[in-house]
C-alpha cells in the first residue's frame, strides 16, 4: 500500500526539480539590470507609505474559521461515505444529525452576520 504513495513522492521530487530549474534558467537567460526604481514596490507609481502590514479586519478570520470547522467536519464524512453501503439506516441518521449540527453552526454564523461582507 505504501508503494502507491512512492510514486507521489517521486513525482514531488521530479516536479520540484523540473519546475525549480525554471526561475534559475530565467535568471541566467534574461538580462539583469536592476536599479533602485525598478526594485521598488509597485503601487500605481506612488511611493510606498508606511509598513506593508496594514491591519486587516477580523472578517477574514471569521471566513477562515467557518471554513476550518466545515473542513474538519467534512473530513469525517469521507470514511462514512466509503462505508455507506454497509451501514444501516441508523448510521445514516447519526451522520445526518452530525451534518445538521454543522449546518446549525453555519446558520448561527449567518444569523450573527459573521458572513456579511461589508
Amino acid at each position, binding site marked *: 500500500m505504501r508503494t502507491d504513495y512512492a510514486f507521489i513522492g517521486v513525482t514531488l521530487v521530479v516536479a520540484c526539480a523540473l519546475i525549480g530549474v525554471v526561475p534559475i534558467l530565467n535568471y541566467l537567460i534574461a538580462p539583469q539590470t536592476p536599479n533602485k526604481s525598478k526594485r521598488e514596490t509597485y503601487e500605481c507609481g506612488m511611493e510606498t507609505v508606511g509598513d506593508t502590514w496594514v491591519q486587516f*479586519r477580523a472578517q477574514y*478570520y471569521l471566513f477562515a474559521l467557518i471554513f476550518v470547522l466545515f473542513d474538519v467536519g467534512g473530513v469525517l464524512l469521507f470514511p462514512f461515505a466509503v*462505508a455507506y453501503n454497509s451501514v444501516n439506516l441508523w448510521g445514516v441518521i447519526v451522520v445526518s444529525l452530525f451534518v445538521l449540527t454543522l449546518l446549525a453552526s453555519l446558520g448561527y454564523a449567518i444569523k450573527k452576520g459573521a458572513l456579511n461582507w461589508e
Partner: protein
Amino acid sequence: MTVAQIVFILLTIVGLGAAFLVVTTRNLFHAALYLIASFFAVSGFYVLLEAGFFAAVQFLVYIGAISILFIFATMLTRTVRGMVPRNSQWQAALFIAVVLFVAMVVMFSPISFSLPTRSDRTFGGVDWQFAEVLGKPGVLRSVPDSSILDFGRALSDLNQYGIALLLSGVLLLIGMIGAIWVARERKPREILAERARMAAEEASEAARQSVGTKIPDVVVAHDSHH
C-alpha cells in the same frame, strides 16, 4: 538500510528541524511556514505508517486550514516581525523540555527492555508487550484493506464512535459560536450602546444603594463619547 528508513530519517530531519525553527524564529510569518513544513513531514510519517487517509487529512486540515487560521491571526495582530524569541522563563522551559525528552527516550528506547518491571504488561485489554513489539521483528500484522471502511462504519455506529461523532459535531458548533462571539468586530454604534447600557446599570445600582433616592427613569451616558 532500507528505503523506508532513509525516508524516515529525511522526514525526521525536516519535521524536527522545522519544529525547532518554529519555536526559535523571530518572524511570526516564518514560524507559520516552518510549522507547515513540520506538518508536511508528519503527513509523510502517516504515509509510512500506512495511514494514507490520515496523511491526506493532515494535509487538508493542518496545512490547508489550521495554518491559514494562524497566518490570518498573525496578520490581524500586526506582530509579525521583530518578536522577542524568548521570555524570562525560557531556561526553566528548556530544562523541563529536555528532562521530559530524556525521560521519554529512556522509557521508549531499547535501553529499558531489560528492566524486569516493563515486560508482560497488560492494561486496557491490550497486551502491550513493549519488548516484543519494540525489539524483535516479525510480530507485525498487516493493515486490512478495509480499514477506512471499518473506520467509517465505527464512526456511524452508536455502539462504537457514533456518540463521539455527534459530540464532536457539538464541539465544533460550540467552538464556532464562541469564536464568532469573541472575534467578531462590533460596530462603533453597538459598542456605544453597550457602554451606555453598562453606565445605566451602574447608575441604577448606585441609586439603589443610596437610601431614599428615586431611581432615575432615564440615564444618559456621558462617558460614551470621547
